């Protein structure tokens, strides 16, 4: 199935891709892909994990050479060959896995792209950054070290960086998967402002709501092929778009679920916990929180309100300055305690926190915190493989082949490896930060089902998400955080977007 754009474009496209193909070993990541972007429009690129979206965009940005096909910028055939060449032609890209240098300040990172002269003008640049960040509503501190920024803040730095390099065509690879709803709105406001000024924007997303909110046209990729090419999203309903992406319909979540069984010992209990953030400031203040076995507690809040620190404290990864953490009644002071007490975790940024890029999928499966099966002095890989096959069969997130290195996997596929490993464990507590981040519609749905299965099996589940709809669909209770405090708590029966939104900005419900 391949459908043409209904209207013939009246002007020359800024970017036109003709029949790009790209192969990585045995994987045909792109085959004969067509794509174009006009000035002043937002073109959404959607598709399953591993459909080839990032690959297409990296070819446009000159990171990869296409095996076949050609590309035109302003009607002129170009062979870019390098990102620097792409930038000089006015193409800028924000990568899905951000490419900032953690040890540098925001200004230094931006200087990498936006300071062509031999001597760095750090002061001037910092002033320009402050000015641009105010103008575009992308708040960042020019002198903050990127290492200390949350993933949402890093995203803003990346976008700012591209804006400041003078790109006219801006590629955003899954920019919203790390942002809170308000931040998404703010980003879209930026995007609208840019398209009005004549910029062309490409945006990758897994959320149809976002496609409808921002995109003028949408292209759907499936298994490296163009299924829908530059169509108007309004001409298609959600089912049709999902079917184009996945090749089948995706069932809705079961609405009914059992009550939380009463229990004396909470799966997770925080009493008066305070803790410092990486910058030494107080990131958590006097947090008390309980998750019962068989209960799913959602954490909502604007990005950077202490969610990351909360997860780390709960898992014994971050020292507390006061208060106590208990998992299943056992006191937790270290990651070892938490694992011993039966905690599983899906970290906020798996690539940074639980992925060893050069190890394979199979090797990652061996690293689940349990004893690695031994055979003599070596590892019993057959047992690890059996563990993996079993986990994959039970969870159904269809992880990548065992021998692939994580460095070769797409963003969503990395997430699926970590989810499969952690959620297959017979854990008493699951701490999941943004579990469906970067997943396509079908896999996000499956992940939600798995979390509910963990709950039904009697695990306590603590889930952080930026997606209120997801939290309201899954949680028994939502705890809202603001600036390191618990600003309120809402029970499933009383879920109300407005009320939660008010709590998120520190108001009262």
């Amino acid at each position, binding site marked *: 199935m391949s459908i043409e754009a209904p209207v013939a474009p009246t002007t020359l496209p800024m970017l036109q891709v003709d029949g790009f193909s790209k192969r990585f070993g045995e994987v045909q990541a792109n085959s004969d892909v067509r794509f174009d972007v006009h000035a002043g429009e937002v073109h959404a690129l959607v598709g399953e994990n591993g459909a080839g979206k990032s690959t297409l965009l990296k070819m446009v940005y000159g990171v990869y050479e296409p095996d076949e096909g050609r590309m035109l910028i302003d009607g002129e055939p170009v062979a870019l060959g390098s990102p620097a060449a792409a930038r000089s032609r006015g193409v800028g890209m924000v990568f899905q896995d951000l490419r900032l*240098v953690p040890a540098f300040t925001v200004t230094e990172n931006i200087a990498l792209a936006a300071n062509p002269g031999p001597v760095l003008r750090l002061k001037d640049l910092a002033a320009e950054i402050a000015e641009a960040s105010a103008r575009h509503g992308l708040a960042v501190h020019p002198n903050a070290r990127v290492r200390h920024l949350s993933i949402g803040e890093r995203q803003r730095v990346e976008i700012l960086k591209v804006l400041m390099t003078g790109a006219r065509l801006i590629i955003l690879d899954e920019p919203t998967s790390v942002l809170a709803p308000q931040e998404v709105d703010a980003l879209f406001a930026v995007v609208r402002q840019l398209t009005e000024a004549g910029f062309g924007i490409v945006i990758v997303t897994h959320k149809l709501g976002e496609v409808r909110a921002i995109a003028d046209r949408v292209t759907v990729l499936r298994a490296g092929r163009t299924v829908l090419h530059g169509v108007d999203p309004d001409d298609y309903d959600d089912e049709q778009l999902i079917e184009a992406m996945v090749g089948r319909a995706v069932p809705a979540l079961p609405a009914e679920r059992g009550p939380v069984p009463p229990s004396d010992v909470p799966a997770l209990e925080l009493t008066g916990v305070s803790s410092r953030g990486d910058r030494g400031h107080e990131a958590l203040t006097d947090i008390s929180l309980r998750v019962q076995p068989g209960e799913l507690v959602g954490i909502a809040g604007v990005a950077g309100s202490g969610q990351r620190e909360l997860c780390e404290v709960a898992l014994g990864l971050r020292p507390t300055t006061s208060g106590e953490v208990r998992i299943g009644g056992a006191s937790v002071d270290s990651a070892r305690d938490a694992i011993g007490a039966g905690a599983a975790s899906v970290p906020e940024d798996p690539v940074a926190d639980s992925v060893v890029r050069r190890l394979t999928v199979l090797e990652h499966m061996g690293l689940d915190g349990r004893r690695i099966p031994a055979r003599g002095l070596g590892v019993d890989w057959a047992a690890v493989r059996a563990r993996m096959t079993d986990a994959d069969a039970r969870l159904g997130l269809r992880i990548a082949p065992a021998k692939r290195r994580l460095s070769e996997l797409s963003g969503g596929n990395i997430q699926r490896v970590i989810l499969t490993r952690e959620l297959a464990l017979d854990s008493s507590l699951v701490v999941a930060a943004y579990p469906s981040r970067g997943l396509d519609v079908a896999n996000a749905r499956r992940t939600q089902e798995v979390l509910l299965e963990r709950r039904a099996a009697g695990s306590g589940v603590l889930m952080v998400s930026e997606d209120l709809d997801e939290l309201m669909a899954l949680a028994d209770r939502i705890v809202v955080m603001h600036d390191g405090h618990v600003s309120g708590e809402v029970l499933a029966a009383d879920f109300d977007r407005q009320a939660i939104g008010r709590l998120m900005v520190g108001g009262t419900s």
Partner: protein
Amino acid sequence: MSLIIDVLTGGVRGGTSILYAALGETVSQRSGVINLGTEGGMLGGALTAYIIAAETGNPWLGVLGGGIVGAALALVHALLVLWRGANQFASGLMVLFLALGLTSLFGASYVGRTITPFTTWAIPVLSDIPVLGPVLFDQDPLVYLSYLAVPAAWFVLFRTRAGLLLRTAGERSDALTVHGADVRVVRTWAVGAGGFLAGVGGAHLSIAYTNTWFENMVAGRGFIAVALVILAAWGPVKVMAGAYLFGAALALGPALQARGIPVNQFLLHVIPFVLTLVVLAALGRRSSNAAPAELQRVFENGAPAT
């Protein structure tokens, strides 16, 4: 009082060769390459400078030649590590032994030769300042040059685009690729420049400080320089302070002996190394936080990540 001044003056003079070498190693490691061959670069620089000074009578030409030989040895390391995928530690040690062998061979006939060395030149006015004057401003020209080299290295690393690219190569090479620079090219330049500085350090040793040549005369200073980079947390200014500390440790023995105070010869020789160990143990964790991130990947053999 005069003992203190002697030790401090000796600290600056004796520390200067370590300072140049450590500055060079800082540049190299900031780009993500460890060069254990620094000791060899110093040896090569020391002998070359000595030969040129002996043959031409011009110590400045000696320094230049020493730097060039230091750079050439480091480029052998860069070639093996960055372009042929060799292990950084094995390659660095290989370069050291190569330099040790070559300098023993070509240096044999220069043992005992006299040269026109650099001489100390007191800077008017400044050298009259009590204590600091004789310590800092009654020195040889290479010492004065090092006063410029430290801020210059700092400026290049932290205030120029070249330095930013160099540090990016050492922190996150995939970010560098995106910005249109080739990791291997950047690292090759850094390693070469670092080697030049090590060669100059060696030259200071042979034609400004000891004014002699003998086999293996660098005697571990290159390794002290490598350790110093780590405990100075890859910062040029801290490297300077550390180099003088080691220089002072080296100068203590001769200063005591000159006053007829008996000290155990062997004890004096180990002081700088014990000092290194103590400081490393004390600062280990703190400075490892400042380590360029790509140094964690030295076993991946310098081949850039994709």
